[in-house]
């Protein structure tokens, strides 16, 4: 129906097509899901992104077998790099794993107002970061990527790299309420893709953006390391918000350990 449906036959290699066919999906008669996901757009985008994944960022993945082959799961990662490259790379790693999963990323709330981009993101599986969307998708047995640092993480400056910002508690409430396992992910490398020296707040306010980085307008080819941790399961028995915060800190600690592991492992920023 759209241009991606035509492109699919031309550009998608057999290997990706085969993995994509094995990915669990819940589609309507016009091959959309209620959030606007469309497999033709998603697979063509995946084919393009896979080239950057393999040859530009040379992504190394570890522990991806911890992601269950099916069923609800929350992928919780550190956020960095001004643009959501980390989310795209985690999604690519999951979609091309031996047990492929479609990852649903929660994106900033202003994206639906941007022509073409909003629809495109929806068609590739992204949805606006609304707790109701998250709960509904988990009830639909989806894998959802959440960055609990939000714009605090993606907009951080280069001097603050690999220092986790405050995590919101929302994801843990959702995980407990829906009985969803959490897979912590440590992302190393995305901090160096668009190093930012400062946040130009007045310009960001003028443009209605959450931040506007003072940075070289180029995405640098930093080598990226993704470490997926073992599932963390929390019973829905927290009685106070302090208990929830304590559990959030457990997730944060797990991510910090995975980041440290990745930092030790890498030989240099670009190699």
């Amino acid at each position, binding site marked *: *129906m759209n241009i991606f449906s035509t492109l699919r036959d031309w550009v998608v290699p057999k290997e990706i097509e085969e993995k994509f066919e094995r990915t669990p999906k819940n589609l309507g008669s*016009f091959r959309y899901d209620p959030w606007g996901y469309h497999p033709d757009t998603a697979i063509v985008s995946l084919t393009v992104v896979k080239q950057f994944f393999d040859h530009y960022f040379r992504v190394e993945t570890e522990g991806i077998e911890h992601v269950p082959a099916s069923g609800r799961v929350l992928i919780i990662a550190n956020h960095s790099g001004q643009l959501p490259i980390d989310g795209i790379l985690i999604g690519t790693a999951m979609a091309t794993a031996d047990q492929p999963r479609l990852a649903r990323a929660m994106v900033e*709330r202003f994206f639906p107002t941007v022509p073409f981009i909003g629809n495109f993101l929806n068609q590739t599986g992204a949805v606006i970061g609304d707790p109701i969307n998250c709960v509904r998708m988990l009830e639909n047995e989806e894998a959802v990527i959440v960055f609990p640092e939000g714009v605090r993480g993606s907009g951080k400056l280069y001097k603050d790299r690999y220092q986790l910002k405050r995590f919101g508690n929302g994801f843990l409430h959702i995980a407990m309420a829906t009985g969803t396992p959490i897979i912590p992910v440590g992302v190393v490398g995305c901090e160096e893709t668009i190093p930012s020296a400062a946040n130009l707040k007045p310009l960001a306010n003028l443009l209605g953006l959450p931040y506007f980085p003072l940075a070289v307008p180029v995405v640098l080819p930093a080598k990226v390391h993704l470490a997926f941790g073992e599932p963390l399961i929390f019973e829905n028995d927290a009685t106070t918000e302090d208990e929830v915060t304590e559990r959030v800190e457990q997730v944060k600690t797990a991510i910090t350990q995975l980041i440290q592991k990745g930092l030790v492992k890498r030989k240099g920023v670009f190699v």
Partner: protein
Amino acid sequence: MSEQRKCVLVTGAAGALARGVIRRLVADHEIIAVDFRKRADLDGVAHSYRVDFNKRGFEDLFRRHHINGVIHLGRVGPHESNLTGRYNSNVLGTQRLLNLCVKYKVSQVVVLSTYFVYGAHAQNPTLLNEEAPLKASGLTHDLIDTVELENLCNVYLWKHPELHITVLRPCNIAGPGVRNSISRLLSSQLAPTLLGFSPMMQFIHVEDMAEALRLAWDHVSPGIFNVAPGDWVAYQDALVACGCTRVPLVSIPGMIPQQIAKVLNLKSFPSHLVNYFKYPVIMDGSAFAKKFGFKPRFQLEQIFRYYREKKRRQDFLSMFSDA
């Protein structure tokens, strides 16, 4: 033992949806058909009236017939009256109808609402359930009457539980005979789109909606329910499937498409509904499906095929008229 036939007053009787409902009820109900536009000519219906709810004569129907229930489908549309006129008919008229129901001890009321009440907002989550806030009146004044009508029903729902009010919020109703905005749009050769936007939409066939109303009538269960099938399609894909030629309009800033729609003044693309062609309003219809055992018979493709074939027929006829 013979059971006495129930007497049902159906408003908006001249519309395609009401005809579908009446067809389903007429065998074992006495039907009182009313419409403010014209007297509906319906098979097997002895009592059909052209009447305005706000006129004094409307009460005579309740005096004349022992009405057991009301299926309230009649609405004054945006192309039939201005904002004040619509408020008077749709809100105050419905209030009068509900007051008469209380006065004459009507035991069941089914009201047709619309998914427009949720409002088309960029930050709407998907699969809105019945508890989601109704944002429409905050987003456009032209939909105040639709939200107020529901608020009114809510007040009567708890104040007069003896009325057993069931409110149904359907997604886009389409199919033969339907003359709402979306059906006019799908019927047209040229259909406006907003450049860079193709929101997800839900459609229900008019016959399925008539069946949903019949179920709501048969299984008395007061409350508010979304009526939407578990199938979705992007707006522009729906247009293509209906054989429409898409005409993209400048989409940002938001004022521009609204002004264009005002200038075009199309019944199919009213300015106050422009955002529904920009942002999705996707409902979760599972509560109704579960409670009333509702399963739509018509697939999206069957709905769209009707519009494709309608266009083919028009092309075919225009060939002869040209000749």
